[in-house]
């Protein structure tokens, strides 16, 4: 079996199986569509509303990408800062954690009151969602440096900068990417939460609209679209990771 089949076939088959069970369950139990619509009904609704959904998807993706990019840059810089100064780490880390414990549903309306119905509050929420995992991934990664390797670098007279680029960063990459993968997983849902609170356009607005108009099929359809785009972004990140640190995968593969 070719390699890519080995990798992609199992989840695809599993998804198909799950959808089949779902369809059969709905057909057999004759459960109301408003409680649980069947996959075929959802698919039909999706196809019908495709232009509308696509239109809104673009907005959501835009918010996601901007928020994520900002989080990536700031998260990375923050991880560096926290790693460099024990005082900063002690002072800021608890606040970072605290920032994540704030229920987004509570601040989403505030953001709207402060920043209106445009892209900004959504971008802020995406940022808030992505920033933490990236920062934590970075900080944990930097902390995982092999002490003997650090000795070597210091003994070789490496500057702080060099230690960072040539030792800390490569060491941190796996953990940093773990954080990035978590962030990207949640990013689209973050944008949708932001839109849900109030938006002119976007998948979150569609969900809210469809949900209030008892259009359960379309709600599921949009959720499905969300999942698909999130997974695409996730795949993209995994690909980048694979390109950036092939040694990591090779080593694991060989030594198992």
């Amino acid at each position, binding site marked *: 079996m070719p390699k890519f089949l080995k990798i992609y076939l199992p989840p695809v088959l599993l998804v198909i199986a799950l959808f089949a069970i779902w369809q059969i369950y709905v057909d057999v139990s004759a459960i109301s569509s408003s409680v649980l619509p069947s996959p075929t009904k959802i698919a039909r609704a999706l196809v019908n509303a495709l232009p509308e959904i696509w239109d809104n998807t673009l907005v959501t993706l835009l918010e996601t990408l901007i928020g994520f990019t900002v989080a990536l840059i700031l998260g990375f810089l923050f991880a560096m800062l926290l790693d460099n100064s024990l005082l900063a780490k002690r002072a800021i880390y608890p606040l970072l954690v605290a920032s994540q414990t704030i229920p987004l549903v509570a601040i989403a309306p505030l953001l709207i009151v*402060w920043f209106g119905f445009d892209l900004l509050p959504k971008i802020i929420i995406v940022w808030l969602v992505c920033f933490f995992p990236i920062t934590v991934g970075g900080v944990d990664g930097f902390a995982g440096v092999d002490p003997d390797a650090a000795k070597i670098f210091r003994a070789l007279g490496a500057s702080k900068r060099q230690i960072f680029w040539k030792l800390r960063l490569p060491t941190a990459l796996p953990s940093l990417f773990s954080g990035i993968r978590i962030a990207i997983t949640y990013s689209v849902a973050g944008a949708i939460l932001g839109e849900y609170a109030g938006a002119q356009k976007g998948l979150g607005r569609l969900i809210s609209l*469809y949900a209030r*108009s008892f259009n359960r099929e379309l709600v599921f359809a949009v959720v499905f679209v969300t999942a698909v785009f999130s997974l695409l972004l996730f795949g993209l990140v995994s690909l980048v990771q694979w390109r950036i640190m092939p040694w990591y995968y090779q080593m694991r593969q060989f030594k198992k």
Partner: protein
Amino acid sequence: ACSDSTATPAKSGEAATKVPVETLSLALDWVPNTNHTGIYVALAKGWYAEEGIDLKILPYSEAATPESLIASGKAELGIGAAEGIVSAAAAGQSLVSIAAIIQKDTSALVTLKNSGLTSPKMLVGKKYAGFGASYEEPVINSMIKFDGGNGTFENITANVFGYEAVLNKQADFVWIFEGWDEIEAKLRGIDLNVIPITKYGVPDRYTPLIETSADVISKKSDALKRFMKATVRGYEYSITNPKDAADLLINSNPAGTFSNKELVYKSQDYLSPKYKEGATQWGSQTLKMWTDYPRFMFQAGILKDADNKPLTKELDYNKLFSNEFLPKN
């Protein structure tokens, strides 16, 4: 009053007079429905533009109520209810109703037919799926009391699906508008017991209505007048052309907003005659209506001030509403 607006002419070529364009934002209380028809009609027909009003209908927000959007200046206008205006006034926030969308209260508590819950006193101990306004609990309790029930109900704040929760038997009753939600249920073949609010001691009130703040009134009264002129035209048109108006409502919103167009037509047929039933002009309000209900609330001791203490002084009822923005005819 509108000195701060720019002098760019209205986009619509039909704008005869060179009025400066004023942007107004309107916050919805719910996803678009037939309560809002007149506004969508006026917007679609370009009547706001004619008046030099650039009306932005803000998307319905799960999170931010029209009241909070108005208070924070994010919206000038909102769809609200008398209950909301009265409790806001008690708490010190000055909201003003500038038009009654429907002259008579069409809201009601509903239960599933086969639940056998047909009057307020039977609701004691039952689950209510609310929409999250602070006035729901006192109003319903007063109905129960009026009906001779003693005790209270279980108040669940359901931000999202109160109505569906009842249909799926996760809650026992819910507060809806007959002109929309009840028709929806009927179309689905679901039978409901309807318990009208006004039948159980609660005085009639304006709900829904169009609200704004004292602050906006003092700064943009001219724009409000022009807004109301177009709005009245919109609702008048909806009264005479229900089918057309319904189509405009449907087409002004994203596909899928109305999963069942039949609902919009049926609802519009039901509401159109009611919009100004018993009034000389669409939107006009009387001091009597704005006194009876708030006084009832006050006397029942369920109005709370900003510190959540019972209000000790009656409100100035004249300040709760205004007819002065309606076109004089």
